[in-house]
């Protein structure tokens, strides 16, 4: 799946926890420093935010009208 913001997308909208966290971490591992990935989710993943900050990754979140949170993560 690709997206205008980045070709690296994890669509976790219909995944049960901890699937979204694991899929995000696996994709982050495949990226080079400075590359971006997009996580799609139906909730704001505050525990994931904490891990991203601890690992030095930055992220921006946008809430879409259908209730999808788009989290653009930079490795």
């Amino acid at each position, binding site marked *: 799946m690709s997206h205008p913001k980045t070709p690296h997308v994890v669509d976790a909208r219909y995944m049960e926890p901890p699937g979204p966290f694991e899929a995000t971490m696996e994709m982050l591992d495949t990226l080079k420093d400075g590359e971006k990935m997009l996580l799609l989710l*139906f*909730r704001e993943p*505050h*525990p994931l935010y904490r*891990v991203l900050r601890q690992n030095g990754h930055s992220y921006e979140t946008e809430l879409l009208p259908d*209730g999808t949170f788009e989290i653009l993560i930079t*490795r």
Partner: protein
Amino acid sequence: MNSSKAVLSFENAPPFAAPLRFFLTAPLFAVLAGLLVMIEGPALFASRWTPGALAATHLLTVGFMLQVMLGALIQILPVVAGADLPRPLALARAVHVGLSGGGLLLVVGFWFGQPWALEGGGLLLGGTASLFLVAMLFALRGVPSTSPTIRGLKFALLGLAFVVALGLLMALALAEGWALPLPLLADLHAGWGLGGWAGILLAAMAYVVVPMFQLTPAYPVRPSWWFPLAVLVALLGWSCGVVFEQAWLVRLSQLLAAIAGLAFAGLTLRLQAQRRRAKADTTYRYWQLGLSSSIAALLMLAIAALWPAASELPGWTIAFGILIVVGGFLPFIIGMLYKIVPFLAWMHLQNYGATRVMAPPMPKLLPDVEINRQMQAYGVAFVLLLAAVLLPDWLGRLAGLAFAVANGGLAWVLYRAVGRYRQAWLDMTLKLAIKKR
């Protein structure tokens, strides 16, 4: 650090003991409510103002609902709002003792007509809620409302402050004999409690847990922002109507609250119809019961707002109370407990075992067969309670017994799950020790 080696950060998650004490105590209050109905029998169904009806109502609203809601919030705040409570275990201990003791005192005050117990229970509950609210405000300071859940949570805390303040005022007025319009204030107290606190909190949590546990689409953003605001505006209008003695404003506000609630329930049913989980599990069924019963209760609220004489019909208010509390909020809460308790147990075991020893899967900690049986018992009790409104002499005591049994079943199921959790912890300790050698 290699990202894939990262695990979900647990150091900020409160210990299991923090929320668990609330989850294990709440069913005992519901058992007491059932026993009280059984002892009082038909007399309890005569009026909402009987000592037994007031005591049973608060056993459920304070002893069960408030108990689980505060415990769950202590657990879930870091997950849904990214906010950390200071010393969550100490807070949980204090709130649990205050809530259980205050709830029991209040019930003693109502049932036996003891002013000292009413006053003591009201003050203890007021103090406990204040402590909880201060801790929440401290944790949420500077946390922006980036999602409808966070804003809903903040509104719900405002609702909690109102319902507790009104409750304390009425407890003191009853104990001291102050001249206040108690029936009007009691309706407003119930409105803030069920709508402003429990209703908004339920919606704020539903935005997260319904898509997550039932694999439905998300709640669309616009109604998610609007629902808590509409309920809050309705309750502020209702309060102004009581203060300034404007009956039309009270009725208009009740109608607005009913419409907002119906819209939320209708939207949730629509989302559930689009779920991707083929199997209808117990949580889904409990939520279906909760939504159907809430819709019936909210229609009654709307009818009474448009045609006030309806609320004078025999059994009207008691039936409304059974529909909204026993058929509505309790099923929502029990449905969520059946997801939260095994998930927390599994999460703490998984964290304990790290990557060396695997935790048992969630269905082993809380088997479907046990919770299905409990749900069937609960459904029977709910139907009997509703039927007892029409046939109190025949069914009143039986309905109380059935409700006590169903909630005893809930306690049994949850205590068994905790027993399996403790056994799994011991087994894993042994396996970890062997692996270390």
